[in-house]
């Protein structure tokens, strides 16, 4: 079967890397592509973060000080778009690229050239999106959810650029997801059956399915926005028989699975790190797999919990409320499994573990505030307030982003071959942990007291809370520069890392040297 393959192998077998810019432009290597994804994500994280700093600076005091409201709206919009599509999603794709082939004993991703294409679309998409900010009339200012008619009747001329930028980001995500799913289905080493796969692989498998299912729906939504704005259709205009609320249905049919796309890989990461530093096997592996699948399936049935105040029929409100609350069950299974894993384990607190522990606690806070929001009658009070902002920043920053940092600190020695500066890394952790809570925890109170989101000015009674949050925000922003410093220092040099720098870590990725050779597993390893 593979006789013909052997003779062509000499050009991929040797281990010296191609050099120069061509290495990065033309590469088919999953590690190179993974690194590019991670660096791109970091750059976007800092860019979106800079926008958050503008937001927090404006909100430091009531009244309008620094920027005009239209620019403020552009900042909230593009901050959201960049963090979702530019920072979190590419970071997970980068981690998938680096780790999945190594974890399942594959030589590379299944479709390496398409892999490179997926990555290189992203810089173009974000240059177009960011470029639209500098056009006459400004960039997108309708929130990252681009509700009609804000994005149709009332949006700036540059909206078409936003639409096409989203289109090509979507193409990139779909190709990336197809690559992951095919790699997992088709490239596992002999003996690596589905129920032996590391949970990071499992969670990405399910995430990839969600991506392929919902990114095309987003493409449909932006297409309808485009034709409504520029070609006279009335999908979201009641005068033509459409409905602005229909936009929200279509958007959130994409949007809710999308938020799980941004958290499921985190569950996989945490499920790798906690056992490693408690020196115990993960408690309830199979239940973790089924819980992930259950969360993914339920994610298709809960979208309208974002729309409780749009005047839906009572039956719909109840249906979406109960379905949403059901998600707490599989998520609870996960939280309890992690806690049970730690129970009577020999725990140590290296940097990845610190981030993982912070994840478990703070993500749970975000999950509980989500449950509060799921209760229809009280959501009428919380809807579109800072309580919502606090909720999704707890799940996305202390959830998704903390897990990405945990993953980075866990696998950096494997990627670079060097141990990072643990003092600096722990400084990064503690400053981030404290500042992120100073930043987001007070927002719960602002929201419960009725402060609306996406507003550049506010009533004076919210001044104290906003000042505290802003101070936390600046501190959190600055703390991330420590992360950048640690990462650069670690890439440049440092103490040599062993093949398995963490005593309790398990998995195929620790069986290869650090740094992992350019081509791993040309011959599939045997999995017991």
């Amino acid at each position: 079967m593979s006789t013909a393959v052997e003779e062509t192998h000499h050009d991929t077998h040797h281990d010296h890397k191609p050099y120069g810019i061509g290495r990065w432009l033309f590469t088919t290597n999953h590690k190179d592509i993974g690194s590019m994804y991670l660096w791109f994500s970091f750059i976007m994280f800092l860019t979106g973060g800079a926008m958050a700093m503008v937001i927090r600076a404006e909100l430091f005091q009531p009244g309008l000080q620094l920027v005009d409201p239209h620019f403020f709206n552009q900042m909230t919009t593009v901050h959201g778009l960049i963090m979702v599509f530019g920072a979190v999603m590419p970071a997970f794709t980068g981690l998938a690229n680096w780790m999945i082939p190594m974890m399942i004993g594959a030589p590379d991703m299944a479709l390496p050239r398409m892999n490179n294409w997926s990555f290189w679309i992203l810089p173009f998409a974000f240059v177009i999106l960011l470029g639209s900010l500098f056009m006459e009339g400004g960039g997108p200012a309708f929130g990252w959810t681009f509700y009609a008619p804000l994005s149709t009747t009332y949006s700036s001329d540059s909206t078409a650029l936003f639409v096409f930028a989203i289109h090509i980001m979507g193409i990139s995500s779909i190709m990336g997801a197809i690559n992951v799913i095919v790699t997992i289905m088709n490239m596992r080493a002999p003996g690596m059956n589905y129920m032996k796969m590391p949970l990071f692989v499992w969670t990405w498998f399910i995430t990839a399915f969600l991506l392929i299912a919902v990114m095309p729906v987003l493409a449909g939504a932006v297409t309808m926005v485009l034709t409504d704005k520029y070609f006279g259709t009335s999908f979201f205009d009641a005068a033509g028989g459409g409905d602005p609320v229909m936009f929200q249905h279509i958007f959130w049919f994409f949007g809710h699975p999308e938020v799980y796309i941004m958290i499921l890989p985190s569950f996989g990461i945490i499920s790798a790190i906690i056992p490693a530093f408690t020196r115990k096997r993960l408690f309830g592996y199979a239940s973790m797999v089924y819980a992930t699948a259950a969360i993914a399936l339920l994610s298709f049935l809960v979208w309208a919990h974002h729309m409780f105040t749009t005047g839906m029929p009572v039956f719909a409100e109840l249906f979406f409320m109960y379905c949403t609350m059901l998600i707490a069950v599989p998520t609870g299974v996960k939280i309890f499994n992690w806690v049970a894993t730690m129970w009577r384990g020999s725990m140590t607190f290296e940097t990845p573990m610190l981030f993982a522990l912070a994840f478990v606690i703070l993500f749970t806070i975000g999950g509980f505030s989500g449950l509060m929001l799921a209760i229809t009658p009280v959501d009428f009070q919380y809807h579109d307030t800072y309580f919502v902002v606090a909720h999704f920043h707890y799940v996305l920053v202390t959830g998704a982003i903390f897990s990405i940092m945990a993953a980075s600190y866990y696998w950096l020695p494997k990627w670079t071959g060097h141990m990072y500066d643990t003092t600096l890394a722990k400084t990064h952790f503690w400053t981030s942990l404290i500042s992120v809570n100073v930043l987001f925890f007070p927002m719960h109170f602002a929201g419960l007291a009725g402060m609306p989101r996406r507003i550049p000015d506010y009533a004076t009674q919210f001044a104290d809370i906003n000042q505290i949050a802003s101070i936390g925000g600046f501190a959190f922003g600055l703390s991330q520069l420590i992360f950048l410093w640690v990462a650069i220092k670690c890439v440049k040099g440092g103490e040599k890392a062993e093949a398995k720098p963490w005593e309790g870590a398990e998995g195929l990725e620790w069986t290869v040297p650090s740094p992992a050779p350019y081509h791993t597993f040309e011959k599939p390893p045997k999995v017991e």
Partner: protein
Amino acid sequence: MAEQQSYYVPASSPWPIVGAVGLGLIAWGAGHTVIDMSKEQDGYGSTVLIAGLVVIAVMLFGWFRDQINESMSGKYSSQLGDSYKQGMSWFIFSEVMFFAAFFGALFYARIIAVQWLGGDSNNAMTNEVLWPEFVAQWPLVNTPGGTETQAMGWYGLPAINTIILLISSVTCHFAHTGLEQNKRKQLTAMLGITIILGCIFLYLQGAEYVHAYEELGLALDSGIYGNTFYMLTGFHGMHVTLGTVMLIVMFLRVIKGHFTPDNHFAFQATSWYWHFVDVVWLCLFVVVYVL
């Protein structure tokens, strides 16, 4: 599954980055073309868009040429073939979800939005306050805003097109079995007929649009009925066009003798794609035209 000694990892290639540049140019160019059109101004948006399309065409040509050469020289393993097949299946699934967004819009508009505007459910005051004259109906030939149009019947061109596309799916299948059984004559004849049927479909679709615009006054901006009609049939038509181009490429490759009964992924993928386009049309025929 992974029982091979090793998996073929393709060498680095310039085409992905060319494709990324092409898509970037298309996105930038298309965005500016639309903006220029809406402001009725001249700009270089369309030039950039065309440049992007050219770059993508070159990329597709170059990428597929390399791919075909590598495949013909026997570099590929059956495991790689499985990756391609699974990749294509997932791609088609993503296309299904794209159409689902527009079918969903059609259902929502027809069953919920239009009915509520007409006062259904607890929306009596919506109707009373907004457009008291408005009566809910489907096809929505009189919009609340006052646009009038006529509905497109299902008999005539749409019915003929349905038959044509159904037959083309059958001929495509027989072309495939011809390839698998190494019956070259059956293969080329059936593939040729499929291509011709695809072209006839596209021609008739065009004629139907002309009829709709000129005789029925049914345009893209004629309210939600016209919107869903043109977006669904339009995107379907674009997929038929792409499918026909793919079939033509397969025809040329068949003539060059590229395929063998057990190594013809490209043909199989094209055939799947064609059947998918056919199924979409069937759904579309039922919910857009008949019901």
